[in-house]
């Protein structure tokens, strides 16, 4: 949206992938990153690791290293036909069905949780489920969630996070053949909350997943969605929306792995930053594997920097291991307000603060409109309005 696009830290190619924990040896593929469910398998984090180098690790030491409270995180789940919500044992086969932890905080959560929260969708008529989660306090906690969409089921699951938190968690998402699932992870935590979330999705044959990360509230929020397009014809639409105020760190490391042929992915993350030390990080890795012929992928991230002293990192990586693809591309841009847009609005009588709000609103609304649920869209627009109400003074 900006006329003068200043691309901040674009690191193309596969030059920065480390092999396994702590290893300095660069390797070929994102797929080879070490994974384990066991905390002790990961060495201590120095902050120089690829997956930690842009995160303020000093603020998450407890989640990385200390014992976590693994008792069930209180949840409220709305009723919907064909949906079950239950607490399952660690050895339930659903646990680990979509992926394993790839870093120490996620592994700490995996080693710590007592029971996993399993939500399963079976209905072929679309259903809507909201998982409302609120920690009772800000003690360091672990959580594990498995969302499964059974074959040909359709539905929307909203993970609605608010209140205090120091939470490290894993969320597994399994979209079985022919299912169409939307998962929205909504972070509207209290101002001082810390949340590290690794979300692993597996999308089977002819199934599709729309995954949406909305991070608005919290002091440090890092949601890393990783999607494996495992079955032929699987599709993933990975959307994200974030608005960082002064002092907030909002991060998302997105990974899409095209494993099967004719898989399609679209990644679109948009963020706004306003205030001193507002900080956002977006890393987008797309890997088109050897067998993923005929795939089509496009990823983009755009950031709008609204004030001085804010910083957005945007790092797209595209790895392609097959010559036979339908399309692959990426775009990344970080820019300031477009003066021409502001001038146009103001020349029609719109005062500057309102013109700025309109432009930011317009910038972010693109992602909101793609969510495809009217009530949630309304709610997010209202939340964005509330954020925008604070930018009067810039």
């Amino acid at each position, binding site marked *: 949206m900006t006329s003068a696009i200043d691309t901040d830290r674009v690191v193309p190619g596969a030059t920065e992938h480390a092999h396994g924990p702590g290893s300095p040896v660069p390797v070929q593929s994102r797929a080879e990153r070490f994974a384990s469910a066991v905390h002790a398998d990961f060495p201590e984090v120095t902050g120089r690791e690829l997956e930690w180098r842009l995160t303020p690790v000093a603020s998450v030491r407890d989640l990385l290293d200390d014992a976590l409270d693994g008792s069930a995180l209180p949840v409220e789940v709305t009723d919907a036909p064909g949906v079950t919500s239950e607490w399952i044992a660690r050895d339930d086969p659903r646990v680990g069905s979509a992926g394993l932890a790839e870093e120490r905080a996620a592994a700490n959560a995996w080693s710590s949780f007592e029971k996993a929260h399993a939500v399963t969708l079976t209905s072929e008529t679309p259903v809507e489920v909201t998982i409302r989660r609120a920690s009772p306090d800000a003690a360091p906690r672990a959580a594990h969630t498995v969302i499964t969409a059974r074959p040909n089921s359709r539905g929307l699951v909203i993970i609605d996070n608010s209140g205090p938190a120091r939470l490290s968690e894993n969320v597994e998402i399994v979209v079985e053949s022919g299912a169409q699932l939307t998962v929205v992870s909504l972070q509207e935590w209290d101002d001082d909350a810390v949340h590290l979330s690794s979300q692993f999705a597996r999308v089977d044959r002819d199934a599709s997943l729309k995954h949406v990360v909305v991070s608005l509230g919290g002091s440090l929020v890092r949601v890393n969605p990783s999607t494996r397009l495992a079955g032929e014809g699987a599709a993933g639409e990975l959307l994200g929306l974030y608005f960082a105020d002064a002092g907030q760190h909002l991060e998302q490391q997105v990974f899409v792995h095209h494993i099967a042929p004719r898989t399609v992915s679209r990644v679109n993350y948009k963020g706004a930053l306003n205030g001193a030390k507002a900080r956002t990080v977006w890393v987008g890795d797309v890997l088109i594997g050897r067998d993923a012929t005929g795939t089509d992928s496009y990823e983009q991230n755009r950031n709008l920097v609204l004030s001085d002293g804010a910083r957005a990192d945007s790092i797209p990586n595209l790895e392609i291991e097959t010559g036979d693809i339908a399309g692959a591309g990426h775009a990344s841009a970080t820019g300031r307000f*477009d003066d021409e847009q502001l001038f146009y*609005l103001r*020349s*029609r009588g*719109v005062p500057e603060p*309102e013109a700025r709000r309109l432009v930011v*609103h317009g910038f972010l*609304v693109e992602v909101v409109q793609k969510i495809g649920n009217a009530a949630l869209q309304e709610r997010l627009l209202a939340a964005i309005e509330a954020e925008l109400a604070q930018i009067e003074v810039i």
Partner: protein
Amino acid sequence: MTSLIIRDLHVSIETDQGTTPILRGVDLTINSGEIHAIMGPNGSGKSTLAYTIAGHPRYTVDSGSITLDGEDVLAMSVDERAKAGLFLAMQYPVEIPGVTVSNFLRTAKTALDGQAPPLRSWVKDLKTSMEALRMDAGFTERNVNEGFSGGEKKRHEIVQLELLKPKIAVLDETDSGLDVDALKIVSEGVNRVKDNTDLGVLLITHYTRILRYITPDFVHVFVEGRIAEQGGAELAERLENEGYDRYTAGAPVH
């Protein structure tokens, strides 16, 4: 009656090469109900004049004055100028992603009037104006100028002119890029607004064809940052035949 009075206006811009003077002493008075055409070679400063009137931050006024009914326009912010009754139809209207035409127009109208327009009459006015400019109703739900063709952008500018009801409008090459039908539609729009609201118009153009539909009371020849000659409608015909050579040849180079 409203008068926009420009006196000895000197304007420069900052470039990588330093400060470049563009306008070198413009004098111009536009009253309600008058149509002034400005013609001049590329780069002579016509858009600079238009943007300076509207208050674009890129241009620095070094000296001179612009007043609207005695009020100092140069002291006003961009939106205050709009509220005072000035309007600029831009040579290159700007795209605003995620902001619908309907939202944009309502926001502008509300800002200008200091209150939201009554819903029913607003919806009717919007529909009437869109129809008059032959813009499909679907445009109201599209994002401002996004994916509009060149001609659609220009017609959208005139829809705004009609709905926002300024006192003085500057039209910067509104006729460029219009096919013959659109040119007629746009010209009719400008004439209609003028008849209804006694609008004063500063019409910047390269072509006399629009002047067949919008009859100018005055034609100004703009060369190297100032008005080199003025006359009536017949001056436009002469410019079309003879070009600007007689004004530029031997003109001082700064």
